[in-house]
């Protein structure tokens, strides 16, 4: 198919899509007139039922908890998939990072970038921890916090310290941490089954003050495990991709 034919096929498809989109849009109640009732009902009962003031987290880790287990395992499987796809192929070997052109010196990472990255690492790790542990209160949770936590590690690489990045996040340990995060979520769900409740029933005490760190029972605990899993998954994915560019080379080409 030539590019021109492809473009015409695309335009024909887009015309059909536009027709269906407009048809669907005509049936919507219009912006701002959300008809409910599910969103309104959950907004009314979630704080009373779970003692979590962040209703989105309550939906994710309580009402739709079963879906979120699947969602977390999508990320888990993706990280495993990246590691599998980027495994050492036949004829590939590790080699230490070195300059490609021997006659040209690669400039070091500038002091400004290095200082900024190193200064930011601590606060970003703290921020990630704060987000991962406050799902029940505010617009945060394990997914957001985990990504921010991973960013803290990746900043070390950005500071020009690739070997330090490899040292603080060895693949074996990152793998194990990821498995603990993913397994922890499932284990909380199964603990409820062992107690004779339904899978992922909120069996922990809900605390007294809505939105306090100690409130909301399993929501806070699940969010913590999700944060650990997401952080490990992202560190794993990034370090696999970095290994490709920096370490692994083909024998002959």
């Amino acid at each position, binding site marked *: 198919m030539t590019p021109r034919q492809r473009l015409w096929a695309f335009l024909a498809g887009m015309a059909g899509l536009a027709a269906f989109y407009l048809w669907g849009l005509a049936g919507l109640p219009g*912006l701002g007139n959300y008809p*409910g009732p599910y969103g309104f009902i959950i*907004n009314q009962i*979630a704080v009373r039922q779970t003692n979590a003031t962040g*209703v989105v987290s309550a939906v994710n880790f309580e009402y739709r908890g079963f879906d979120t287990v699947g969602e977390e395992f999508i990320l888990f499987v993706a990280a495993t998939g990246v590691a599998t*796809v980027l495994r050492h192929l036949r004829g590939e070997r590790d080699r230490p990072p070195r300059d490609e052109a021997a006659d040209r010196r690669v400039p070091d990472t500038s002091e400004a970038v290095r200082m900024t990255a190193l200064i930011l690492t601590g606060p970003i790790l703290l921020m990630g921890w704060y987000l991962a542990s406050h799902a029940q209160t505010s617009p945060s949770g394990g*997914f957001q916090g985990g990504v921010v936590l991973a960013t803290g590690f990746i900043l070390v690489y950005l500071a020009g310290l690739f070997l330090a990045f490899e040292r603080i996040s060895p693949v074996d340990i990152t793998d194990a941490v990821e498995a603990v995060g993913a397994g922890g979520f499932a284990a909380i769900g199964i603990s409820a089954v062992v107690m004779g409740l339904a899978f992922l029933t909120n069996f922990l005490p809900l605390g007294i003050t809505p939105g306090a760190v100690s409130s909301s029972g399993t929501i806070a605990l699940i969010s913590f495990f999700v944060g650990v899993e997401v952080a490990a998954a992202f560190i794993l994915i990034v370090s696999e991709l970095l290994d490709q560019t920096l370490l692994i080379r083909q024998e002959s080409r």
Partner: protein
Amino acid sequence: MQVFPFVVVAWILGVGLYGIVTSRHLVHQIICLIVVQSSTYVLLLGVGYVTGAIAPYFFDVPVHTPAVDPVVQALALTDVVVEAAVTALLLAFAVQAHKRFGTLDPQELVQLRG
């Protein structure tokens, strides 16, 4: 304007799809896929929006204050996570395709296989 967010959805979806179809580089194509998926965030949040309502967080706010639909917001979160997972996998495939075929142009890749 009542339909503005839905126009934005159509625009983001359209430019993303156009990019995928005309792309000459796999990484560019993957980024176009991210753009396509971004349109779903706008759509989800637009569907659950309630005029004059607050975000569904009731910290320091009376519980009966009208709030937007939290279910679509949770779905948008799922959407973001799936997008990150899909992007990571696709980038890994792009790395291997470059190693195997020495090119990242989707149109040349088709010819090589044929």
